[in-house]
């Protein structure tokens, strides 16, 4: 039965901001804080997200700015991409970071995915996916935990999945439904 819900009078001051310093701007550079203040971040979102800082470990492979790679990338070491990559990236036990200058046209499957650059392709993360304020993504995102900084531009489906069991392979579990509503899957070109 339809029962008229109790109506709450909307706020009369939606435009006023007595404390401008607390007002977030869509593209504010201050939005770098991954866990925004002022509202709670539920469990499915990302509280402790890998930093997007440039790699400093010797166990990280790096595709520097100016390099172009075409083909499939697989392995077990972390990968930092600041160049151009076209193909497919599958690093199920590692982290893939797309730096601010990185431009990727590929599906990415990894344990952790951090994006600060441009990605066109579907992303599957086994543990977490994080999108920095300068990230530009066209594609679907499948991850147990998803973190999005203010200013990130993402076009596609966002879906969380259960984190894989410890005894299982750390690769991403498939979604319960196979249909894909990402614009990439339906043929949309990058903006």
């Amino acid at each position, binding site marked *: 039965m339809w029962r008229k819900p109790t109506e709450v009078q909307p706020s009369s001051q939606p435009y006023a901001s007595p404390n401008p310093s607390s007002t977030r*701007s869509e*593209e504010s550079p201050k939005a770098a804080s991954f866990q925004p203040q002022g509202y709670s971040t539920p469990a499915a*979102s990302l509280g402790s997200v890998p930093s997007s800082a440039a790699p400093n470990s010797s166990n990280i492979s790096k595709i520097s700015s100016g390099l172009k790679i075409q083909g499939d990338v697989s392995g077990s070491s972390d990968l930092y991409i600041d160049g151009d990559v076209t193909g497919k990236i599958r690093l199920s036990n590692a982290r893939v970071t797309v730096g601010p200058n990185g431009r990727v046209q590929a599906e990415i499957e990894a344990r952790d995915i951090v994006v600060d650059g441009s990605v066109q392709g579907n992303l599957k993360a086994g543990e977490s996916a994080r999108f920095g304020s300068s990230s530009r993504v066209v594609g679907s995102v499948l991850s147990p935990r998803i973190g999005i900084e203010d200013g990130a531009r993402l*076009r596609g489906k*966002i879906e969380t999945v259960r984190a894989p069991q410890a005894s299982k392979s750390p690769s991403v579990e498939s979604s319960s439904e196979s249909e894909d509503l990402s614009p990439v899957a339906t043929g949309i070109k990058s903006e």
Partner: protein
Amino acid sequence: MNWTAKPRIGSAAGAAAAPSKPGPSPSAPPAANHRVSNGLKEFLWLIGDVPRGRILDLGPVWQSTVSFFVDRGYRLSAEDLLRAWKDFLTAEEEKLRTAAIGGNNDKLSPAVLADKFLENALQYPEKSFHGVLAWDLFDYFDAEAAPRLVDRLSTLVHPGGAVLALFHSRPAERFHRYRIVDAQTVELIPAPTIAVHSRVFQNRELLDLFEQFRSSKSFVGRDQVREALFVK
């Protein structure tokens, strides 16, 4: 209008995941840039029967909005349509400018531009979504583009699904984007203007615009912003 019964979008199996019916709001006053949204409450109530329902957010992607829906089992798709529209128009103007140098400066009509834009925008299978958050984007599309957008949305929305849209009764003082704070609160985010307020819709114009939807309901706040729900 036929707003006498709550549409049943999905099976009763999803009832456990459905939010409670809209009720009285907490007594705490909203923050200055927060808007208590009856439209959002109704929207959530309408889609509450759908287990793992699909939502399309036509604004920018925000952590809080994503968390709000995915934590409740919904699947969210995001497409910042106004940003895409602006980028599209900028690209078309650049093409025109370049072509003008070569002597061909035929300007595309607004209708052709809108059709061309929709060749790449909102490309999803029919009946993909149980709910669409359109925010106030219709205020920023011209008279040729807005009806085409509604036509496209009507094909994307599952029967019984709902579209939530906001309409300003006067040109907005500044440009805002929107994100969900909780089940009845929307935060207005001041943002750099990416589009000029195009028009103010009258009631009859709204009903005509959404004539393909079977019912509608609206809430007008003291700030004269109308929240409207259209159910397919």
